[in-house]
């Protein structure tokens, strides 16, 4: 037991710590395998017929990840998704997970796979 204590302490500390987008990507890649920014961009731009309120990620986030978006229903302004334009993007694993869950369901009517999340994150990080 004793030798696991430092590990436990590390886990306990994790939720409090902001991570870098690269760390978040690494964690997703560890589940999914290598990520492809090109596939991520396809997911970002793909039109879906299954969506409830929106037919693509771009409906709310616009087709430019560096530009502010607008929620299709509430019209609230949404900060850009690319970390290069909005530095707190992809720094809070719980927040990233929460919005993948909501938005994939909103657009695709299903959860995104770990591979899709890794690809999408890789694309957002690659935007310069």
């Amino acid at each position, binding site marked *: 037991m004793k030798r696991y204590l430092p590990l436990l302490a590390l886990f306990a500390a994790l939720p409090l710590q902001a991570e870098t987008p690269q760390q978040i990507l690494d964690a997703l890649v560890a589940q999914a395998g290598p990520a492809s920014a090109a596939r991520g961009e396809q997911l970002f731009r793909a039109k879906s017929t299954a969506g*409830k*309120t929106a037919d693509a990620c771009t409906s709310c986030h616009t087709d430019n990840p560096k530009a502010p978006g*607008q*929620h299709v*229903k*509430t*019209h*609230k*302004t949404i900060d850009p998704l690319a970390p290069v334009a909005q530095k707190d993007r992809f720094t809070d694993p719980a927040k990233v997970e929460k919005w993948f*869950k*909501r938005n994939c*369901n*909103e657009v695709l009517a299903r959860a995104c796979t770990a591979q899709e999340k890794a690809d999408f994150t890789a694309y957002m990080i690659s935007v310069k």
Partner: protein
Amino acid sequence: MDHAGLNWKNLLTLALAVGATAFAIARAPADDEAIFPMPAGKTYLNECGSCHTAFAPGLLPARSWRKMLAGLTDHFGEDASLDEPQRLAILKDLETLAADTPQANLRMRRINGAIPGNAAPQRITESGYFKFMHDEVPRHIWQRKKIGTPGNCLACHTRANEGRYGEREVRIPQ
């Protein structure tokens, strides 16, 4: 001519009365500036201000919030669900600052007074108070791209996320 009513005594009384009124007005900023109390901390802003304005709790009575927070998985067609500790914390804040609490300011009381006791409305924008306050905003303005819907308070009330709806902080986008 004899201005019997305008001797120095009367003038002094008048000056004192004007001064006292000005003082009383200056001391009642909450009721005059349309400020609604907001929950402390960032949780409410992050969880309930991500998809739209973080609406001030004082815009609806506690029973409306209770009903809303019991159905967050289908919140106006969207999934706004929270983990249970967060849901309970937000519900407590909403109940404490709602329109029908004893500490409610004048505006909150007016909002509550216009809602029947057996109703738990879920929309702020359909309340009599909201419609009355915005009856001079023409329809084509609501349809401007940056506004889109009356529920987009933040588009015009630049400090709505701090509960501030005063006239001086209104900027209608083009």
